[in-house]
């Protein structure tokens, strides 16, 4: 193995995207920190070089520590002793190593001891760690919670909690309950205000909480008595050392076994309010979920990368009928499609990360100064894009990741079914990605807005208006054809009076949009570096047939057909 970062040209390519300069300039406020902090960058080139070098550190730790520990961590898993979680030995080593390298709180501002990293290089780091061990990536990735505290909490809460991340504090977000999974409006855990002590007291149960025994937890709780919907929920920050919370059990899972999934019991646990009452779910958790979804996108791409590499290596080494199996069309087609799916999801991942970066940077500026009209428009533009690209990347990357992991085992044949090779672990780890932080079905519910409001289409038109070199015009022509077909399919799906009709076709429409967008991203990438030309060509070739299949289905579908799909629904 080699350094996970330096050996992956795709990541360095994404880090050097032209939009990065704008992102860094905004994020660094004209590099004002250079006189206040001895580790702040001097200019854009300095910042870019810093990201590169820090990612090199992470790449090295992935190579030398996290990846080699992954098998034993999967095997040993965390343990529950006296109601507290004890990580596997490998997990402890990984955390200690990342902590020694100062890699917690990466995106926090310097005044809280953070590295002030934009989201894009942070997502690259998350992809690297996920490739090394997807389960561990959850524990490390929960430093996202720091971002939520930073964005919404009062200065007192920020000053109390944020500086702890640089010294390795771990975090958790406690949302799910036994009767509140996808439907978080039903959260029951109670919070009541203790006036004498000026604190909030938490009572209730949380379930399926990743890294539930963390140092710092964000807890969604019902603060408004007598309410039953999302507007009665607030967000609280809980410090484990204050007591009042125990871990009742750790779940035994199919995959990501190194990451402890906990059932928590809060009994008179003291906590502090984050931001305003009643905003817990409708504002803060939505923001937290969006960054978590981008995180799952990164995790999915990381697992895909690992699975593809394992499959490629094996296909080159394994000989049958007197030659390496990679030389058989059935195998090389599988492998190549895996690779272009991986590259397409990566292209979409970093496009989304950049959109989030620009809009968050502007949002941050707007707290310190009044934005110019142009800037406000730009912020809104990127926010709209981030809102509809985030569910898209979560959906596509996690589904591709499962397909790639499935095919990686297929390429290994019977060997892949055994515990002897890492692919079986990757396959198990992949499975959760289409489920948590909102199932694929829920991502479609969020993404369909991008279809109906035309946000995807107008961005597709923008891509269309960018120039490509003459010999790539043919590919662009195909994408334009696909766009026309997509528009027709939307019209057809919206025609019906039946309300469920659009919902029924929503996933097909969202995927059609995703294929066109990913096709454009690969095409544009290949304009910036010819190395992506073949991938762009193959992806667009496949994507056109995938879209045709969806289009055909939608066109041939009669409104009455909906009933067919309820054949057993009525019997229940």
């Amino acid at each position, binding site marked *: 193995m080699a350094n996970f970062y330096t050996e992956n040209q795709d990541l360095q390519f994404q880090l050097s995207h032209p939009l990065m300069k704008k992102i860094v300039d905004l994020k660094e406020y004209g590099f004002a920190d250079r006189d206040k902090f*001895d*580790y*702040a960058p001097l200019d854009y080139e300095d910042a870019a070089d*810093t990201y590169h*070098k820090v990612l090199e*550190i992470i790449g090295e730790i992935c190579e030398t520590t996290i990846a080699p520990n992954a098998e034993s961590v999967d095997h040993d898993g965390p343990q529950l002793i006296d109601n507290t979680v004890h990580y596997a030995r490998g997990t402890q080593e990984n955390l200690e*190593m990342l902590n020694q390298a*100062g890699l917690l709180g990466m995106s926090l501002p310097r005044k809280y001891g953070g590295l002030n990293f934009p989201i894009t290089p942070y997502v690259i780091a998350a992809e690297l760690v996920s490739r090394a061990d997807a389960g561990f990536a959850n524990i490390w990735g929960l430093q996202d919670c720091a971002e939520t505290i930073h964005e919404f909490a009062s200065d007192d809460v920020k000053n109390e909690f944020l500086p702890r991340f640089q010294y390795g504090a771990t975090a958790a977000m406690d949302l799910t309950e036994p009767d509140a999974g996808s439907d978080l409006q039903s959260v029951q855990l109670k919070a009541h205000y203790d006036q004498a002590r000026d604190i909030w007291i938490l009572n209730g149960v949380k379930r399926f909480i990743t890294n539930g025994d963390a140092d710092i937890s964000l807890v969604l709780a019902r603060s408004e008595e007598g309410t039953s919907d999302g507007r009665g929920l607030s967000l609280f920050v809980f410090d484990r050392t204050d007591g009042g919370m125990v871990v009742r059990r750790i779940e035994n899972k199919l995959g990501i076994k190194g990451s402890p999934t906990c059932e928590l019991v809060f009994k008179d646990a003291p906590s502090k309010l984050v931001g305003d009452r009643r905003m817990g779910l409708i504002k803060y958790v939505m923001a937290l979920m969006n960054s978590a979804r981008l995180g799952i996108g990164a995790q999915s791409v990381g697992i895909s990368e690992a699975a593809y590499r394992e499959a490629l290596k094996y296909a080159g080494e394994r000989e049958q009928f007197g030659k390496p199996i990679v030389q058989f069309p059935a195998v090389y087609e599988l492998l190549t499609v895996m690779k272009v799916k991986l590259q397409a999801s990566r292209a979409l991942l970093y496009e989304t990360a950049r959109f989030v970066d620009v809009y968050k940077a502007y949002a941050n500026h707007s707290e310190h100064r009044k934005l110019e009209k142009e800037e406000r428009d730009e912020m809104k533009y990127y926010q709209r894009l981030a809102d509809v690209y985030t569910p898209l990347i979560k959906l596509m990357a996690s589904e591709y990741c499962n397909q790639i992991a499935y095919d990686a085992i297929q390429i290994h044949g019977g060997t892949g079914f055994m515990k002897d090779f890492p692919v079986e672990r990757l396959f198990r780890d992949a499975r959760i990605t289409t489920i948590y932080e909102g199932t694929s079905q829920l991502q479609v519910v969020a993404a369909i807005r991008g279809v109906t409001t035309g946000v995807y289409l107008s961005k597709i038109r923008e891509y269309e208006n960018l120039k490509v070199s003459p010999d790539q015009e043919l590919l662009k022509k195909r994408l334009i054809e696909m766009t026309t077909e997509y528009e027709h399919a939307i019209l057809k799906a919206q025609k019906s009076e039946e309300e469920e009709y659009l919902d029924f076709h929503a996933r097909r429409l969202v995927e059609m949009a995703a294929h066109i967008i990913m096709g454009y991203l690969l095409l544009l990438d290949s304009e910036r570096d010819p190395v992506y030309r073949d991938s762009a060509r193959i992806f667009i070739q496949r994507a056109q047939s995938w879209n045709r299949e969806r289009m055909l289905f939608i066109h041939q579908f009669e409104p009455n057909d909906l009933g067919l799909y309820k054949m057993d629904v009525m019997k229940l």
Partner: protein
Amino acid sequence: MKSLKIIVLAKQVPDTRNVGKDAMKADGTVNRGALAAIFNPEDLNALEQALRIKDRYPESEIVILTMGPGRAAEIIREAIYRGADKGYLLTDRKFAGSDTLATSYALSMAIRKMEPYAMVIAGRQAIDGDTAQVGPQVAEKLGLPQVTYVEEIQEITNNKIVIKRRLERGVEIVKSSLPLLITVHNSAPACRPRHAKRLMKFKHAQTVTEMQDNSEDYISLQQDRPYLRIEEWSVDDVKADDSMLGLSGSPTKVKKIDNVVFKAKESKVLTAQNVDIEWLVKELITNNTIG
């Protein structure tokens, strides 16, 4: 005891662990252009030992000393990212071609310039020459007690140190006075990673030679922050005798270099039949591999 000055000897070496076809030139010398330049692995084990002492006595100062061409300054930056305080680059054309005798002489002269110090720590050997001579020779020249093959520093007080050595068939615990020189074995703990914030703080640390190409913005930054200056020492700076350096100071002569090709010999082909497996098990028990 509050603080110790610890000198760590480090060398930039070609990465001989990943040797390709063009690693050697036709004349039998190492083709440095074809191999990545890295921090000699056991010197990283040595640095970690120094850092552990600094963990215990945070006032301690860790100084990196390396000899080499200008680009070896990278080793000093790397050590600083991992926690060292500062470094000196011993660089001069007159050092070129030095063997272990000349090198240890040069290093010992530089170390004299840094007195007083509590310890000199080096890796056991470098992966290019693999002689394991430089550490011990430096100790001889400085008249220091030396402990080689060090795996762990168990105890360190004002003028006493207790050390565990890794030997071929076991370990040995030894005691010594300070100052001393130790060479660290690769069974000692691996070095901690580069720290992101230290990297950001010190990435502009440069030698005077490197600074020459900088823009004005960077030059003024380096002037404002004296810790961004890596000292370069020449032969004159360390008051060394020219005749004891370089080719004239190096009695080692390379007579000839052979290409070693590993060949399997006395091999026995076994099939998956019971009779062969039984033979193998008996053989392994006989030669004490198992049982």
